[in-house]
């Protein structure tokens, strides 16, 4: 018997003994059920999600998310806004990746109007879209450590996120909410010297990813807290309508950036890999997002290299009046698939907008995934599912 086998035998024995002790205690103490409210104000909920969990001892019997604390009535507000005003609003749905929210709506409006942005605008859109993804996911990569008690990664994440935000700000004028996308193109061209600076920042982000690799992924505590915790099989993930990295972490190879070439964006000109992980646990979700961040930096590098020349705005009327019709456009946003179903009646503003946000579907799996886990793992699983409250409640 080798050393490692002995160790695993010991671990197994210790585990069985622990389980037996637990069972004994449970029989002797007769633990009483308890209802615990996690939230609506809790650092692990990224805002104001409230989760009501029924506990037996430290095990969750059932969990029920209570959304609505951040409901701002987007779909109703979109009906009373004009098309250029809607982008101001929908910036604030998923506030970490604001630019990525505008793109599907603008694409839907363009589809209805029958125009397409010129190639340079598509490239710049895609670059800014991926930068929004970086700004979003770098925060997750650090924050996940904070939920497990490792504070250092958060500082690193915010340090390098600032550089990405600087690039977005210097191109769009908005640090957080760019409101840069227009029907038919984008507002401005890239400033001078932006491309070289952006490449430096991409290098920084890649270094940040390596640091996270060393700090967290290779960390034993991190692995024991996340491996095998919150496993979502691929069939369940598909049933609940998960999307984005949560779905890819369950082993489903599906990414609209690659799989939907009809989206008029520049992803089809870039060469990138869609990472999946077979495990479907919290660790897989973290790992997939880490790889995704690296791929995003590579996409931006490639697109910056072959940025075409030309106009950034196609010919559209000064006052945009969208003809009657319906369009649904979805893109692969940082959190998952985000889609806008726009119904137009030929007015200055949309008649009805249905917003499909990824976090709402991603969090719908919470009752299933939280059943039977321990209370500390609730925080880990919620952090690894990675939702934004504005994205859930809208």
């Amino acid at each position: 018997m080798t050393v490692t086998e002995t160790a695993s035998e010991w671990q197994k024995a210790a585990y069985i003994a622990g389980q037996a002790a637990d069972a004994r205690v449970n029989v002797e103490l007769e633990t009483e059920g308890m209802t615990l409210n996690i939230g609506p104000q809790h650092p692990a909920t990224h805002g104001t999600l409230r989760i009501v969990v029924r506990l037996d001892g430290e095990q969750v019997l059932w969990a029920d998310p209570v959304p609505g604390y951040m409901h701002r009535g987007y779909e109703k507000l979109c009906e009373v806004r004009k098309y250029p005003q809607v982008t101001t609003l929908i910036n604030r749905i998923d506030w970490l990746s604001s630019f990525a929210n505008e793109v599907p709506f603008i694409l839907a409006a363009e589809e209805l109007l029958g125009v397409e942005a010129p190639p340079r605008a598509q490239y710049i859109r895609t670059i800014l879209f991926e930068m929004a993804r970086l700004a979003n996911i770098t925060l997750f990569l650090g924050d996940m450590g904070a939920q497990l008690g490792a504070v250092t990664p958060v500082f690193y994440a915010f340090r390098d996120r600032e550089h990405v935000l600087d690039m977005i700000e210097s191109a769009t004028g908005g640090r957080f909410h760019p409101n840069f996308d227009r029907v038919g193109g984008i507002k401005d061209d890239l400033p001078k010297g932006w491309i070289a600076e952006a490449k430096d920042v991409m290098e920084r982000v890649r270094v940040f990813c390596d640091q996270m690799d060393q700090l967290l992924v290779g960390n034993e505590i991190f692995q024991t807290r996340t491996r095998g915790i919150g496993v979502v099989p691929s069939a369940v993930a598909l049933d609940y309508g998960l999307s984005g990295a949560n779905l890819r972490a369950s082993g489903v190879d599906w990414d609209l950036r690659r799989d939907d070439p009809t989206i008029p964006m520049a992803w089809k000109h870039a060469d990138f890999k869609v990472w999946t992980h077979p495990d479907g646990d919290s660790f897989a979700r973290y790992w997939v997002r880490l790889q995704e961040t690296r791929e995003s930096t590579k996409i931006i590098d490639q697109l910056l290299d072959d940025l075409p020349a030309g106009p950034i705005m196609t010919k559209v009327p000064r006052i945009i009046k969208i003809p009657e019709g319906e369009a649904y456009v979805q893109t692969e946003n940082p959190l998952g698939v985000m889609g806008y179903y726009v119904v137009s009646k030929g007015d200055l503003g949309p008649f009805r907008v249905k917003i499909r946000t990824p976090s709402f579907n991603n969090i719908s799996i919470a009752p299933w995934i939280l059943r039977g886990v321990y209370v500390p793992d609730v925080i880990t699983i919620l952090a690894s599912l990675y939702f934004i409250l504005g994205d859930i409640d809208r």
Partner: protein
Amino acid sequence: MSLVESGRSPKALTWLLNYGRKRSLWAYQWGLACCAIEMASVYVSPRFDVMRLGVIPFPASARQADLLIISGTVTDKMAPPIRRLYEQMPDPKYVISMGSCANCGGPYWDSYSVTKGVDQIIPVDVYVPGCPPRPEALLEGIVLLQQRIQNEDPAERWRGEPIIVGGGVIS
């Protein structure tokens, strides 16, 4: 009534007390919406680093906090918890309303579910305009609040008009 509360404390003692209070503001982490991320930047980003001003963003409960930063949209569903947690804070307590949403409703001025201004439910000391305000704006708000705390008469708290970062008047 103690010496400080009765307003008969010596000036030097008042100065010292106020100095201590302004340099150890415990800010309650209450992330509501977009502004919460800018608030988090102020808290943990090495570029802004609010801790050099003596603001400590680590109280886990409202009962340990001196400063409440309402960062983001206050909805009608969220308003009762805000009021409740504000009441749990021990005196002296200060409130910074960060961002247009918390100030007046912001881009959701005609929404059916948003509280137009957190000052409808709790008193506000500093208004920080912006959507979201830059981290520097929040830092300025904190510095202005600290100046006010330094010049405060401990016997007469809660006097005067609220501060608006960047000037302006409340109409």
